[in-house]
């Protein structure tokens, strides 16, 4: 329902009152108390002084120049053309006041709103607003619907039945007892445009969202698609290389074997130096104890008389387990004020968003390339709280966990890169063939050729090993979560004396203890305007039920 509210009030001691449409509020009591320029005198009747036909109706519109409408008697209606001109809806609005009571002591001063349709026929539904003196003395005047005196404040509402059939709204005024004055503005033609302008800028308050283009359509879908840990890729990284887990004894034996005359002769046919047959020797921070099958180490097309534990899958999953991150205070502080970081070995600290991981189980897993030491680390967050079940990987980082040992001056990085490109491209080609992706096939084939070319290129000779990754050998290898919490001062009597944040609508009788009201409508409470204001202040500033 669209509705407009207007604030009408009288400027004290002046013979005018305002319509401030943009404020869209109602403050009739002041208007009525003061009347149209009448001074209220508690010892006499309200509106004792007759309203003169020369009184001015003053209309304000924000910064628009004030307009004075002479209330000069017998003119016809003042026409307001409201914002909504659809459906042939026009509202004619004529404003004045009248004193309806004819017998002293006057108890009522009415503003009557009568409705007329476009044919100037009166429409049923006249609304009389009465200034009522409740307590026999003229100290309290309030605006009532005259029919039921229920304290309704005058409100113009679009959609209200009073506006059906394109009515005319006319407010009649009485200059003195039984003397009717119709304050009108037909003679003030120019005012019409002003009023049109004024109304055209009145934005109807919308009690409920009507235009979904402006409000969106909520779906309240909190469900998530789970993003799981990746499985180990089914690819053969070691098509052209061999990786072995070695013990100290195995390494010693291998070194001696590589330097023996018969092996040197063999390897010299393949490599510049025998040691160049070793692509890499790394220390991995992993026991890899599951690899226990000893095999002779293979170099090129030859095997040598040295044993290692063959690594059958160069991609290795490391499961660090989980950490449950629990609330400490059980309130907003756990989410707003707490800082959470995760120490990921060989990476360092990464920041976790508290709102992501509080009240959640986070799981850390690595996938490690046992040839290069490169890894991807994943953090999965699993939380079932606040009506949301979430279980997905939302953090990922990369690094390298190997400590390289100097063995030879040969740099086989090109070879390794070539191997990787070849394998990847081969897989891509195979996939493209399977799916009929021609461009993928071309791209994959090109990659394979490029990779093979790199493999066949001569290794780059270096003179020294690379110790840059040595730091990982001595780094902290324990994955953990670091939680930084504020210390909060919560007075023991806070709950009873001040309560906690609520922001929920309740019937007040459902509550006990300290209460602060944020919004309330006191229209139905039988109190004076001042008392209502005071009551609202009390309700909003806090009270005990």
């Amino acid at each position, binding site marked *: 329902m669209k509705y407009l509210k207007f604030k009408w009030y009288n400027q004290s001691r002046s013979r005018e009152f305002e319509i401030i449409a943009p404020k869209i509020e109602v403050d009739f009591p002041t208007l009525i108390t003061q009347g149209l320029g009448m001074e209220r005198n508690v010892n006499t009747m309200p509106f004792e002084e007759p309203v003169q036909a020369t009184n001015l109706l003053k209309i304000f519109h924000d910064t628009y120049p004030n307009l004075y409408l002479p209330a000069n008697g017998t003119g016809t209606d003042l026409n307001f053309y409201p914002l909504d001109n659809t459906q042939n809806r026009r509202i004619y609005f004529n404003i004045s006041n009248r004193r309806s009571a004819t017998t002293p002591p006057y108890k009522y001063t009415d503003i009557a709103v009568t409705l007329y349709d476009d044919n100037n026929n009166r429409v049923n539904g006249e609304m009389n607003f009465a200034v009522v003196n409740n307590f026999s003395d003229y100290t309290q005047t309030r605006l009532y619907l005259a029919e039921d005196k229920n304290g309704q404040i005058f409100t113009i509402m679009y959609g209200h039945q009073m506006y059906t059939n394109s009515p005319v709204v006319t407010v009649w005024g009485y200059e003195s007892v039984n003397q009717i004055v119709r304050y009108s503005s037909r003679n003030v033609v120019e005012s019409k445009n002003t009023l049109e302008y004024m109304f055209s800028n009145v934005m109807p308050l919308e009690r409920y969202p009507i235009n979904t283009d402006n409000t969106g359509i909520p779906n309240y879908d909190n469900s998530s698609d789970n993003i799981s840990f990746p499985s180990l890729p089914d690819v053969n990284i070691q098509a052209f290389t061999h990786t072995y887990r070695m013990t100290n004894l195995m390494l010693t034996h291998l070194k001696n074997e590589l330097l023996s005359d018969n092996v040197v002769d063999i390897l010299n046919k393949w490599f510049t130096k025998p040691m160049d047959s070793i692509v890499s020797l790394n220390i991995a921070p*992993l026991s890899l104890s599951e690899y226990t099958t000893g095999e002779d180490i293979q170099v090129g097309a030859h095997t040598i008389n040295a044993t290692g534990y063959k690594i059958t899958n160069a991609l290795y999953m*490391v499961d660090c387990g989980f950490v449950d991150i629990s609330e400490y205070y059980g309130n907003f502080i756990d989410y707003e004020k707490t800082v959470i970081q995760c120490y990921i*070995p060989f990476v360092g600290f990464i920041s976790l968003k508290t709102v992501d991981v509080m009240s959640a189980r986070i799981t850390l897993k690595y996938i490690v390339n046992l040839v290069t030491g490169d890894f991807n680390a994943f953090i999965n967050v699993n939380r079932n709280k606040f009506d949301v079940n979430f279980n997905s990987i939302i953090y990922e980082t990369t690094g390298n966990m190997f400590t390289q040992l100097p063995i030879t001056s040969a740099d086989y990085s090109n070879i390794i890169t070539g191997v990787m490109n070849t394998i990847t491209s081969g897989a891509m080609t195979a996939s493209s063939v399977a799916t009929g992706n021609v461009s993928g096939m071309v791209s994959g084939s090109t990659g394979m050729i490029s990779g093979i070319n790199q493999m066949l290129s001569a290794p780059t000779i270096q003179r020294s090993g690379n110790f840059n990754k040595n730091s990982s050998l001595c780094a902290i290898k324990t994955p953990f979560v670091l*939680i930084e919490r504020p210390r909060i001062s919560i007075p023991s009597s806070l709950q009873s004396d001040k309560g906690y944040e*609520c922001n929920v609508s309740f019937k007040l009788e459902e509550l006990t203890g300290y209460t602060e009201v944020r919004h309330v409508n*006191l229209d139905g409470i039988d109190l004076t305007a001042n008392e209502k204001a005071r009551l609202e202040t009390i309700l909003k500033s806090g009270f005990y039920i």
Partner: protein
Amino acid sequence: MTKTLTNEKVFTDARILNAEEVESPTITIISEDDLTAYNYARVDDFNRSYFATVEVVRDKLYKLSLESDVLSSRADAIKNLTAVIGRNSEKYNAYMHDNEMAEFSYKTVQTKMFSNPNVFNGYSYLLTTV
């Protein structure tokens, strides 16, 4: 909202000086009893309860300056109101930001290990050959 009243005294001959001021009327009372200890009043004609300030005008003549207790006067109607509640002692949402809670300048730090903390404690040599 609801008050416990004691030592009630009923007057039927009080003179209301400004009866039109139902919010804050002033009443004169002649009483044999000392009324200076009283601080609350009820005027049924006005359908209101009041906070009272008692002033001795002269011997046995008291002047009561009243101010309506809007909460108690309309307690039933108020309890029937539905309102958006900002704060309450019993019904609240602890996950809403609350400025009444103050933060100390220092913080606490806590570490929690993952459940398999020793996965990187072992080591092995990895040899890769061509």
